[in-house]
């Protein structure tokens, strides 16, 4: 420390530490997503990476986790990956629509990978943002439609005890003819959307997501409560419809 008799503010440097915004993308890879839809998702993920990593503020803090769900669910990124080094995974579509398993993977990852603040040790991450992309209704392992599995799993993610990590928002995007508005709204914590199934639709939607994230980071650098309010500040792609 300077021993002169003049103030020296330049030498006062907080130790700081990094804080990240975890973003989870839960992607339906059930049988009905085979072909063009799953390819559209992959291209959309590329766009998401490009757009988010291109924002000077978002790229500093966004870490991505991708969970696919068909007959099984898997955290294909094997953790939360900095957006600057995120590479869209190879996606394969098959099987049922086990949204419940996706929520369980999400809960496990939040406990394992989202950093909690410790005074004198480390800064904690912001609450995770969760985006779910699905083209159908949740099922059991036999492909039978049911709400008996995914609803308690979702509740387990949202209704956690004090001190446990939970998401700031869960936002569902439904594509194709088999989605039901009420189901999408039930999955979400707030808003839900219907979208097209084309490459252009997925690209546009994931671009919208990345812009909303950047806007939420911009609003006072505390995305915990800002993502929802900033979804309204970003223009909706033409075939993305907000479900009232």
């Amino acid at each position, binding site marked *: 420390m300077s021993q002169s008799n003049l103030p020296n503010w330049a030498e006062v440097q907080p130790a700081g530490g990094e804080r990240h915004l975890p973003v989870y993308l839960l992607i339906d890879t059930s049988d009905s997503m085979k072909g063009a839809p799953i390819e559209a998702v992959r291209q959309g993920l590329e766009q998401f990476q490009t757009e988010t990593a291109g924002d000077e503020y978002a790229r500093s803090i966004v870490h991505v986790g991708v969970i696919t769900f068909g007959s099984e669910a898997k955290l294909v990124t094997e953790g939360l990956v900095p957006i600057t080094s995120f590479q869209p995974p190879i996606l394969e579509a098959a099987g049922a629509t086990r949204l419940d398993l996706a929520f369980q993977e999400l809960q496990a990852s939040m406990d394992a990978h989202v950093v909690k603040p410790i005074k*004198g040790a480390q*800064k904690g991450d912001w609450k995770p943002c969760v985006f779910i992309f699905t083209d159908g209704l949740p099922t059991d392992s036999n492909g039978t439609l049911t709400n008996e599995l995914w609803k308690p799993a979702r509740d387990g993610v949202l209704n956690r005890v004090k001190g446990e990590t939970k998401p700031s928002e869960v936002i569902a995007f439904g594509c194709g003819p088999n989605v039901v508005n009420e189901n999408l709204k039930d999955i979400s914590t707030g808003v839900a959307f219907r979208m097209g199934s084309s490459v252009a639709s997925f690209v546009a939607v994931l671009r919208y997501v990345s812009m909303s994230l950047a806007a939420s980071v911009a609003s006072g650098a505390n995305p*915990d409560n*800002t993502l929802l309010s900033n979804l309204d500040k970003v223009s909706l792609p033409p075939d993305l419809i907000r479900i009232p």
Partner: protein
Amino acid sequence: MMKPAIAMGDRGLGWAGDSHPAWMLAHAKLLDHLVVGASAIGQMHLREGTGRDDAFLIRGLGPWLAIAVSDGIGSRPLSRFGASYTVESLTSQLLRPFSRLTPDPPAHRVTSPVPEAPGALEELGPSWPKARSKVSPSSAGIVSAFSGAAKGARAKLTPSSSMADVGHEQVASVGWRAAPSDSKRLELGDDSLPGGNAGDPTPDLHAVVRAAFEKTHLGLNEHARGLSLKVAELGCTALGVLMNLRTGGCIAGQVGDGAILGMTAQGQIQEIVPGSEDPQDTPTIGKSNFADFLAIQPAPVAPLQAVFVMSDGLSGDLLYSDKEGALEKVGTQIVRNLLLSATPGQAAIGLLNWLAGYKVKGSWDDRTLVVVTTPPGRADNDSDDSTG
């Protein structure tokens, strides 16, 4: 005799418009304490052309000092209306038990020498924090938001869409109070106020702080109604400190994030009020269950070398480092720089520029800090207990 009082910092906002500045500083020398406050807009707000959501206010009444810091939540465009109200109310309510609104009797007026009006305004220097706000040809942002009200219609209160300026200019009001050599004025009439003389019964300070928070909560709800808003739109944290500058006693209360720290004469720093253990909590003083999150604690030792009251834009950068001694190092440096400054005004501008300018990756929020400190030696010599 009425106690001399001071008030400095951010003022409340209402239908008269969003006058909340991007940067604010305040400074005073009270008894032998240096009191400095500064609040700097975050880099993200500057980029987006939105306003500062932090606020602070400092009030003094005789030997009593009240400090409040508040941080409006980012998702609410009008939260600074809540933060500015909160600091006004909290500091006022903290001092209320010590106030008597009685005019000076003629016999106690100072007759000679009659002080002269100040001859010159101390220049605080041109080194205002550099702004990287968007440049826009329109200057109507703030004015247009309230043009409906100006025309007589009770327009809905809406946030100005952008700072919409081509630069930032200083808008200031500065006051002068009795010089330290006139400190006898502070002593006169002590026996008219509780806590003024040794042996006087002091109000239960814990109850004083609790009541101040409760009344601020109620007042914030009323303020929202007056603005035709929901109280959630004014969501903000609340940090309050009540100090007796003569005894060094200090008690603090807090709802929400941020930090209130005390530094001993030996340079040790600790939180006076323990922060929330659940980092996922975002309690605000407007919520109906705010009392569940209100923590009130007296300082563990008195007097302290320094007291720091800060919003989470700064506490987040100070409290979570794994580098041993990092917090003490920064705290000591801040106090040293303040005390080495040529004048309290220079101390304040130095603090403000530091808050506005230091770089930490991902740290883009508003930063607010109020520091009360004394020259080294006083904290060592005094041995009063921790209550006022």
